[in-house]
């Protein structure tokens, strides 16, 4: 038997203010820690879910992103005619030759402007992305200066709402539809007819070719053929992998910055917990001595004080996680450094983040309580009783 749990809990309850402040300090650190992980997860999820596993993105070799990629019309024609390409209705090949242009748009809530990605897509472009749904208006018609805007862009930028007009590429473009891409990266894009956009921007080359495979298992064969063809200086990636790589730089930055920040903060919280626990030991020296006299062992006192600080950590962890869970209601937008364009994403909480944050909180409690608990365990009985 050990020292009763009620003794440990009531000691924490008795010192309400100290307990609340210490657990509150830890809660704030856990909040920062969890929020950063949620941000990174939100970014990862947004970009990874942008890609479909049976789509292949073909870009110029070592371009890294579509914006840096160049594919000539001849090369695009070769890629389109690969045998692995799937066929859709009326025997149409499911491929989309696309071009990417960045334009600067002004925000609705301020006069600041940001880069927004315009994607010129082929007729089948939307068929390749089943997650993209027109929620207002209609699809743009080929051959006209019509565009459709992602929900997140339409909400946040002047001129991007339905019926509004945007001026770029020396033309005026009418927004005829708004699409919802299910919180993927496409939500932060504007789409138009690829041929119209290339004319407007005087481009003669595509940025990428997207194709749907009839059998996703044949990807390796397709990749080897495209990358081995001397006429093509291109590389092929599964769309899901391609977009996951797009999130790498920003995701790493968020993770490292977040972990570094939480580590610094956690030192403060650990010191706070240590001071609380040292004070707790100092106030209870007589009780510690009495418990030992009654027959409780050193290890019982050690575990009682460690449990007390673990409870502080756990309380901080729970409060921090509850606070962090509210962040799921927020969406933030920032520039994705790899595509140089605006990307909107939310905070995503999952089981792995909950476990990591909670373990982090317990570790803070454990480190904070360790030295005071060792001190409590090593007091001599006679000296402790004299402290009365």
């Amino acid at each position: 038997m050990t020292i009763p749990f009620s003794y440990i809990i009531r000691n924490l309850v008795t010192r309400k203010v100290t307990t609340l402040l210490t657990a509150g300090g830890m809660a704030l650190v856990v909040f920062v820690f969890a929020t950063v992980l949620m941000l990174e997860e939100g970014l990862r999820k947004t970009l990874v879910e942008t890609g479909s596993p049976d789509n292949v993105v073909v870009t110029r070799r070592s371009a890294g992103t579509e914006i840096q990629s160049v594919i000539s019309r001849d090369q695009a024609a070769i890629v389109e005619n690969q045998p692995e390409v799937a066929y859709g209705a009326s025997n149409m090949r499911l491929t989309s030759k696309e071009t990417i242009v960045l334009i600067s748009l002004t925000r609705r809530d301020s006069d600041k402007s940001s880069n927004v990605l315009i994607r010129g897509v082929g007729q089948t472009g939307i068929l390749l992305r089943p997650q993209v749904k027109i929620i207002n208006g209609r699809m743009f018609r080929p051959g006209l200066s019509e565009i459709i805007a992602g929900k997140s862009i339409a909400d946040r930028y002047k001129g991007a709402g339905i019926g509004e007009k945007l001026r770029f590429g020396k033309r005026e473009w009418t927004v005829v539809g708004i699409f919802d891409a299910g919180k993927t990266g496409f939500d932060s894009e504007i789409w138009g007819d690829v041929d119209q956009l290339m004319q407007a921007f005087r481009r003669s080359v595509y940025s990428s070719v997207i194709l749907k495979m009839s059998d996703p298992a044949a990807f390796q064969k397709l990749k080897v053929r495209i990358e081995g063809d001397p006429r093509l200086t291109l590389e092929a990636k599964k769309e899901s992998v391609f977009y996951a790589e797009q999130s790498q730089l920003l995701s790493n930055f968020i993770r490292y910055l977040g972990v570094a920040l939480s580590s610094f903060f956690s030192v403060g919280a650990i010191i706070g917990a240590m001071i609380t626990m040292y004070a707790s030991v100092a106030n209870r020296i007589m009780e510690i001595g009495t418990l030992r006299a009654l027959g409780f062992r050193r290890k019982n006192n050690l575990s009682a004080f460690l449990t007390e600080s673990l409870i502080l950590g756990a309380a901080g962890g729970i409060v921090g996680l509850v606070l962090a869970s509210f962040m799921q209601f927020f969406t933030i937008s920032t520039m994705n450094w790899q595509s140089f364009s605006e990307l909107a994403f939310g905070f995503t909480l999952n089981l792995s983040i909950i476990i990591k944050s909670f373990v982090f909180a317990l570790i803070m409690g454990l480190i904070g309580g360790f030295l005071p608990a060792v001190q409590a365990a090593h007091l001599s009985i006679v000296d402790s009783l004299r402290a009365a």
Partner: protein
Amino acid sequence: MENFSAPIVHIKNLTKSYRRGGQIVSVLTDITFDIPSGEFIALMGPSGSGKSTLLNLIAGIDKPDSGTLKVGGIDIAILSEGDLADWRAANVGFIFQFYNLMPVLTAFENVELPLLLTQLSYKERRERVELALIMVGLSDRMEHYPSELSGGQQQRVAIARAFITDPVILVADEPTGDLDRTSAGEILAILDRLNSEMEKTIIMVTHDPHAAKTAHLIRYLEKGQLDVAD
């Protein structure tokens, strides 16, 4: 097991010193005496005479430098720290001057504490604790916290905690030192009953001649040496 012809406490050539500020201060010098089983003994003497140290040694919360110290036939001077903790839990009941109750536990829970180190079930523990609190006249105060009790009531809870495990000896360090005359009288009466009715061996350190009179035997300590008195 208890035999009136054999002493419950056997002390021979016991010495104890402390290191204080780099100097070794001798507290007990060559103490030899026995305490018969069922005795109620008062240890008296001026401050610093070593009476509390002697009590701590007998209770197994401190260790002698040399000499023999047997309690209930067991040489407690050679027990390891863990074994000594188990021995105390089973054989010694403590009563302190300032009661030493856990402020966050109720009277019931304070008395139950030593039983948590036994194999007794919750039901058995509950029965014992209730009985003990009835014996010290606190059956209506079981759910009260120490801060809600008077000094005398707190000391009665502490006495219940001391005898709840049915220990071989009860050690009391100035049990009436913090109490008024009436409360002190009540505490001494309970100790007397524990000695006469339950045949508990009680070793009490006190400054108070009135308290010492309750004991059947008084021993004086002076500069770490024992003087025999009536």
